[in-house]
């Protein structure tokens, strides 16, 4: 199964890259932006045909390596 996960910075963590992207967008003429937050996206192909089991495996990966829960949250967004 292919599992997709996104990792985002927690709300109260400063995101200087997002800030610079916001400023650049503003300079390009995109004036209607309130805020930009940058995150990470993973597509993981696991050798498991049961979607629930596949999700569990990727959640464990997120907890142990892919995300640092001091500053980040993760979310499984698709299993196919």
């Amino acid at each position, binding site marked *: 199964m292919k599992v997709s996960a996104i990792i985002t910075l927690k709300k109260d*963590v*400063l995101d*200087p*890259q997002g800030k*610079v992207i916001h400023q650049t967008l503003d300079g390009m003429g995109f004036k209607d932006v309130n805020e930009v937050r940058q995150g990470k996206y993973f597509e993981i192909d696991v050798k498991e045909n049961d979607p629930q089991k596949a999700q569990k495996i990727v959640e464990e990966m997120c907890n142990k*390596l*892919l995300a*640092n829960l*001091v*500053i980040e949250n993760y979310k499984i967004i698709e299993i196919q």
Partner: protein
Amino acid sequence: MKSAVITFPGSNCDRDMHVALNKFGFKNKMVWHNDNELPKSDLVVLPGGFSYGDYLRCGSMASKSKIMQSVINFAKSGGLVMGICNGFQILVESGLVPGILLRNKYLEFICKNVFVKINNKDNPYFKNLDKEVFELHIAHNEGNYFCTNDQLKEIVDNNQVAIYYCSDNGKTEEKFNPNGSLKNIAGIFNKEKNVLGMMPHPERMIDKSLSGEDGSLFFKNLLNNIK
């Protein structure tokens, strides 16, 4: 006294640390990240560099290296473990010290001398030093220390802050903070104070003609403290 410096793929301060430790009387051994066991050591050092190309998060891959289980066991049994720069990032990612190091506030790689003030001398690293403010070198892109409010409370309550960024006369104001680090924190201990993580490089300050000698004071004192 025996020490061990771990070399990860992408470490680049490992040999500098080796030279520094030997210069001040340690018998140092270099240890490869893929080894299972640490040699018998009084001090283990995780050096600076860019382990695994800083992929994912700085220090995250190195913290899962084979040797790290042995380093974690050594630290948990009271052994002295010191992480400098990328080594500090590896320590936070392995959970040996709390918090994390984020990208520098102004998105610049910072490479310069800074002053740091020692906050806690009740530990083997800083005990008996008769100086409060040290001039050391920093070179990093992710040195912006961050932790949750609960962690910060615990760190302060247990007196775990090791050093603060400060002025040449020891003022720890925001304007002397090079990277946006929480409360000007440049280095912290674990609860028991046997594990020290810090961004500045003492091993770059061991020669009067090249830099300065505040690193020499640190290493000489460390050796005397653990003799």
